[in-house]
C-alpha cells in the first residue's frame, strides 16, 4: 500500500512551472495492479518517481507500507563507467540483497554475454532495459513501478520477462504507466488518471480508460 497525503508537486521546466499534483490524497491498495493514464506532459513519470521515492514531494507526505522498486523505465539508474556486473553488485548492496546470487541471476536473465563485464556506457537502450529488468526481478519488491517499458527486446525476451513477471505477480503488485489500453487491461485491475494536477483512482480499468479517452478528445 502506498498512501499519498496532501501531496503537492510542482515541476520546473524551461517553459515555466507545471503542477503535477495539487494537494492529492490517494491510496494505492495492496493486492491490486494499477495502470496510470494521462496525456503527454501530465507528469506520469514524475508521479512514478514520487511513488518510488526518487523525488520528494514539495508538500505533503508519501508513506510506503511496502518495499517499492526503483522506477523501471528508460531513464538510467546505472553508472555508465561501471560494468553491468558492478552496477548489479551496487544495487544488490544498497537493497541488502545477496550479492553473489543476485549477480548470477541477472547475468543469466539479461543475456548480455560479454557485455555484462563491460561499462554500461557501451550498452544500447535495449540492453540497459534488459539489465534493469533483470535487477528488478532479482530483488524481491512488493510493488514494481514500471514506466512505459513493456516493449523491450525481441519477442523471445519479452516473453521471458512476461513469464518472470507472471511468477512474480503472484506475490507482488505493479503500478504501470502506459498509453496502451490493451496493455493496461491485461496487466491491471484498477486504473488511475492523472490530469491537471489531480489524480483520480478508479476501481476498474474500464472507467479509467473511458475518462482518459474523454480527456484525449477534450485536448484535441
Amino acid at each position, binding site marked *: 500500500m502506498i498512501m499519498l497525503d496532501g501531496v503537492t508537486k510542482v515541476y520546473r521546466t524551461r517553459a515555466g512551472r507545471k503542477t503535477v499534483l495539487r494537494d492529492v490524497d490517494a491510496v494505492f491498495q495492496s493486492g491490486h495492479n494499477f495502470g496510470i493514464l494521462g496525456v503527454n506532459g501530465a507528469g506520469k513519470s514524475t508521479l512514478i518517481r514520487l511513488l518510488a521515492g526518487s523525488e520528494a514531494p514539495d508538500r505533503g507526505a508519501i508513506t510506503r507500507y511496502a518495499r517499492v522498486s526503483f522506477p523501471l523505465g528508460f531513464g538510467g539508474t546505472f553508472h555508465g563507467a561501471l560494468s553491468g556486473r558492478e552496477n548489479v553488485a*551496487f544495487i544488490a*548492496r544498497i*537493497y541488502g540483497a545477496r550479492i553473489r546470487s543476485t549477480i548470477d541471476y541477472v547475468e543469466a536473465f539479461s543475456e548480455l554475454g560479454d557485455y555484462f563485464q563491460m561499462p554500461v556506457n557501451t550498452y544500447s537502450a535495449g540492453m540497459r532495459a534488459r539489465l534493469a529488468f533483470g535487477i528488478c526481478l532479482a530483488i524481491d519488491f512488493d510493488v514494481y513501478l514500471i514506466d512505459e517499458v513493456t516493449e523491450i527486446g525481441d519477442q523471445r525476451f519479452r516473453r521471458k520477462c*512476461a513469464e518472470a513477471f507472471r511468477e512474480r505477480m503472484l506475490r507482488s503488485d505493479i503500478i504501470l504507466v502506459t498509453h496502451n489500453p490493451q496493455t493496461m487491461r491485461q496487466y491491471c*485491475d484498477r486504473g488511475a488518471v492523472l490530469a491537471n494536477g489531480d489524480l483520480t483512482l478508479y476501481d476498474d480499468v474500464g472507467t479509467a480508460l473511458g475518462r482518459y479517452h474523454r480527456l484525449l478528445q477534450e485536448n484535441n
Partner: protein
Amino acid sequence: MNDIGEIGAGALDAGELGRSSGFLDACRRYLADRGIPEQEFPLFYCRLSETLLHRGNPERAVECARVAFELRPQAEETAHLCAWVFSNCGCHADAAAAYERLLKFRPSWVEGHRHASGSFAAAGQMDRAIVHARTASDHNPSSFEFAMHAGCLLQSARLFEQAADYFARAASIQPGEPSPLRHWSAAKFALDQHEDAVSLALQALSLGPNDCGNAVHAAELLLRTGRFDVALELISETVVRNPEDVVSLRLLSEAQMLVGRPEDALGAIDRALAIAPQMAEYHLHRANLLYRLGRLDEAAEAFGHAAELDPSNPDTKRSQLTVYFDTGRFTEALAIGGELIKTSPDNEEYAQAVLQILNRRFETLEADYVLLSEREVRPRRELRPPPGLLARLRTQGRVIQALIIRESRTRFGDSKLGYGWALLEPVLHIVMLSLVFAVMMRGRPPIGDEFFIFYYTGIIPYHLFIHTSSSMTYAISSNGSLLQLPLVGTFDVLMARGLLELLTDTLVATILLVGFGAAGLGALPHDFLGASAAALVVWLLGCGCGFINAVVNAFAKSWDKIWAQLTRLLYFCSGIFYVPGMMPEWIRDILAWNPVLHAVDWFRASFFEQYEPHWLDRSYLSAIAVVTLLAGLGLERGLQRRLHEPL
C-alpha cells in the same frame, strides 16, 4: 366411346362431389353406375387424366394416369398418354418408366429413347439417361439435337471422351453452329488436350463472334493455357461490346491480374460487383487483389463480405484469418479461427493456424492475459510498516558503503592498478616534493632532523582538507544516474566521497609512516591522539567545505575553477614547507586567519615535542570546522531537491 368426353365430365363432377370419400372411389362408383365395361376403364382414366391436365389439375391427372397405367400397362396408347401426362406434370421417374414400357413395344422408336433419356436425366438417373441418349443419337446420327443431348449428358457425367465424340458429330451435322464446338472445346480441355480445345474455342468464336459466351469461353481457355496477353485483348474487346456482362468483367479482372495489373483488375471487379453485389466469389477475388496490393484492412473487409455471402466456404474464412494475422489484428483472427475450428474440428491446418495466432498473441502481449487469470488467486499481502529510524540508518549505512566501494572502483577506472593508484599517487607526490625541498633547504628542516618528516606533517593535513573538499564538489554531477535510485540521496554520495578521502589519506599517512620507519627515520608522533584529532578536525572542515562546494557548484558551474585557485594559494599559506615562526610577525598574524595553518601546526606539534607554536588556536580551528560543516549540511538539506535534475 364417342360419349367418353361426356362420361369423363360426369365422372369429374362425381369426383368433385365425392371429395370427402376420395376422388378415385367416386370415379369407380360412377363407372359402375353407368355400366361401362371393365375393359374400357383404362381408356376412360386416360381421357379423364388428359381432361384434368387441360383443366389445370395436375395432381388429379397424375392420379388418374397412374390408375390407367396400372390397369393396362401393355396397351401402347395408354402408355403413351401416361408418359405424356407424367412428364408434363413433373413426375419424371413415372414418365421414364412409361417410356421404357413403350420402347418395349417399339424398340426402334428413336424419339422415344430421346424422351426416356430426358425423363431419366430429370429424375436424376444419369446412367439410364445416357444409355437412351446414346441409343437415340446412334439410331439417328443425323439429328443435331440428339447428338448435342447425348454430348451434354456425357459431359455432365464427366465422360469427356465420349462426350467429345457426340459434340464432334453435332458439329459435323451443323458446321455453322458454334455451340457444339464450344462444348467440344470444353470436353477437350477436360481431357487435357489444351491445343485442340483452344483452337475449337476460337473456331466457335469465329462462327459466333457476337455471342459473349463464346468469347468468355475462349478467353478463359487462353488464360488457363498461359496466353494472358491474347486473352486480355479478347476479353477487353468483349467487355467494350458488353459492358454490363459480369462474367466478362470477372474474367477481365482475372486477365489483368495475371498480366500484373492488379489496380486495373480491381477496377474491373469493382464494376462487376456494382452490377452483381451478391456474388461471393467476386468478393473473394477482390479480397485477394486487395491483399496482393497490400491494402490489408480493405482485404479483410472484402473477405468478410465473401464469407457472409457464402458461409459454407471455409477457405474464405481461412484467407480472412491470414489477413487479420498479417495486420496484427489477433483478436479478430482468433475469432475467425474459432469459427473455423467449430465448423471443421478435424482440420489440422486450421488448428495449426489458430495455434500460430495464440503463440503470436502470447508473444506480443507478453502473456499478460495469462497473468490476469492467475492474479485472482494471489493471497493478500501483509502491510509492511514503513522503516523505523534504526532501519533507515542501517539502509543509509549500506548505501554509503556501496557508494564507497563504487567510488573506489571508478576513481581510476581505466587503470589496472585501480585503487592502488589512489594510494601510490600521494605517496610519490610527497616523496618527490620532499626531495626537492630537501635540496633547496640544504637538508636542514626548520624542525626535527629529517625534511621528509617535516614536509609529511605539513602535507598530510593539507591533503586531507583539499582532497575531501575538492572531490565532494563533483560528487553529485558524477553520480547523477545513481541518484535516480530512491535509496540514494545527495547526502549519501557526498558523504561517501568524504569518507573515501579520509580512508585513502589515512592509509597514505600510515604507509608513509611505515616507510619512514623502514628507512630508519623513526618518526612516530609523540602525541598520537593529538595527531588523530587534528586530522579528524581538518577532515571535518574539508567535509563542510565539500558540502558548500557541491551546493555552490550546482548553481555556479565555474565555482570549481575558482576553488582550484584558492587551494593552490592555500598551499603556500598553510605552513607546509615552512613554519609561521620564520615569518615576520605581521605576515604571521594574517596567516593565522587560515584554519588549515592551525591544522598543520596542530598535527606538527603532535609529532615534534619541541614544537610549541604560541599562535596555534585549536578551538579556533574546531569552531570554524563546526560552523562550516553546519553551513554545508544546512545548504545541502535546504537545496537538496534542486541539486540534481531527474533524468
